[in-house]
C-alpha cells in the first residue's frame, strides 16, 4: 500500500495505518538520526520522537510533499535542535561532547580497522551539522540531491555544494586510507 493511502487511512481514524508507517520507516529514520547525532541511545530516542511528532501533526498533513520527505524533515529538525542543545550544554559544562557514533566492536576489530573507524567517526562528527546531514542522506541513505533539496528545503545547487565540501573534508581527514598508502 502506498504511503499516501496509509496517511489517508490514518486521517480517517485507522491507528493501524500509522503503525504500518512506523514499521516501514523506522530503520531509515533511526539510521538518519544515528548518522547526524551519533550514539545509539540518542538516535533511538530522536527517531521515536520523530514518529510521535508526525503522529500529532499528521491530521493536518496536506500531502504537499511525500510522507517520507516530510518525516525526514521532522527528523532532521529534531536532530539539529538536539545538537544545538548538546553544544550549549557542553559550553556551559553540563555535558561532554564525545564522538559517539559506534564503530565495529573494538575488541574484535583489527587495529587498523579500529583506527580507520575512529578516524572516520571523528571526521564525520567534525563536519558542520548541515553538511553532515547532507552527507548522510546522500552517502548512506542513497538519496539523490534533488530529493535532499526537497527534504532540507534548499535548492539543489546548495545541497550539491554542501555534499562536495563534506566529501573533500572527509577525504582530507582520511588521507592515507583514501590514497591507499596504509
Amino acid at each position, binding site marked *: 500500500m502506498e504511503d499516501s493511502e496509509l496517511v489517508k487511512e490514518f486521517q480517517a481514524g485507522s491507528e493501524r495505518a500509522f*503503525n504500518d508507517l*512506523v*514499521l516501514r520507516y*523506522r*530503520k531509515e529514520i*533511526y*539510521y538518519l538520526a*544515528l*548518522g547526524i547525532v551519533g550514539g*545509539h541511545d540518542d538516535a*533511538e530516542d530522536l*527517531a*521515536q*520522537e520523530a*514518529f*510521535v511528532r508526525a*503522529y*500529532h*501533526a499528521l491530521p493536518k498533513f496536506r500531502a504537499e510533499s511525500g510522507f517520507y520527505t516530510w518525516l525526514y524533515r521532522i527528523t532532521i*529538525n529534531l536532530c*539539529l*535542535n538536539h545538537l*544545538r*542543545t548538546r*553544544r*550549549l550544554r557542553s559550553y556551559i559544562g553540563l555535558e561532554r561532547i564525545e564522538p559517539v*557514533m*559506534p*564503530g*565495529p566492536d573494538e575488541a574484535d576489530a583489527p587495529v587498523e*580497522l579500529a583506527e*580507520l*573507524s575512529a*578516524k*572516520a*567517526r571523528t571526521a*564525520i562528527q567534525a563536519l558542520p551539522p548541515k553538511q553532515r546531514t547532507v552527507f548522510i542522506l*546522500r*552517502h*548512506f541513505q*542513497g538519496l539523490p540531491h534533488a530529493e535532499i533539496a526537497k527534504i532540507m528545503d534548499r535548492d539543489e545547487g546548495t545541497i550539491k555544494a554542501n*555534499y*562536495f565540501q563534506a*566529501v*573533500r573534508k*572527509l*577525504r582530507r581527514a*582520511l588521507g592515507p*586510507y*583514501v*590514497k*591507499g598508502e596504509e
Partner: protein
Amino acid sequence: MMTREEIIERLLEPFETLSDDERAQIEAWAQKDTEIRRALTEARAFSDALQKAQLLREPGADTWSRFLVGVRARIDKRTRRIPLWQRRPVLIPVVATILLVLVLATGRFGPNFTHDYSNGEIAEVIAGSDILAEGPVLTEEDYANLSELGVNVASVAAVLQADTIEVETDELAPESEMDAPPLMDELLALSDKDIEELLTKLTATRFI
C-alpha cells in the same frame, strides 16, 4: 559522453552509484589523464574506507522489536492531556516566555517570520519548546535563563498571521534590549483557538 569537468564532479559522488557506462567512460579517460586516474582511485578508496569503517552499525536486535512499542507508549502518554481550559493558566506564562525569546523581536513579520538569534538564545528557545512539548512546566531556573535574554517585543497578532516561523541560527544577533509591552494582557485576551494556534506554530518553529 561526459566532459572532463563532469567526470571530476561525478567522482565526488558515492562510487557505488556509478553506472557501468559511466565507469567505462571514466576508466577510458583515466588511461590518458593522471588527474582523473587519481580522482578515480581516491573515489574508490573513499567508498571502501567508509564501508570498512562500519559507521552505521546495526543496533541490538531488540531495537526494532521495541521501537513501535516505544513510539506508542509516548503517544499514549502525550494524548492523556488535561483540557485546554485547565492548562490555560499555566500555558499563558509559558507561551509568553517563549514568545519573548523567540518571536517578538525587532524583526520582520510577514508570511515567513525570520530573525537572527545567537546560539545562547536559540538554546534557550529550544529548552522552552521542549518544555512546551513535554508539558507546561518551567522551573525558576528556566525563567531566570529566559529573562536574561534581551529582546524587543512586537505583537502577538503578527505571530498569528505568519504562515511559518523560522529562526536563522547561523549568525550571531546583535545585543538588543528588553522593551516589553503588556504581552500578558494580549495573550489573556486570546481565544482558546488562538492559543492552540500559537502553540502549534511555536512547536513547529524551524531552526535554519
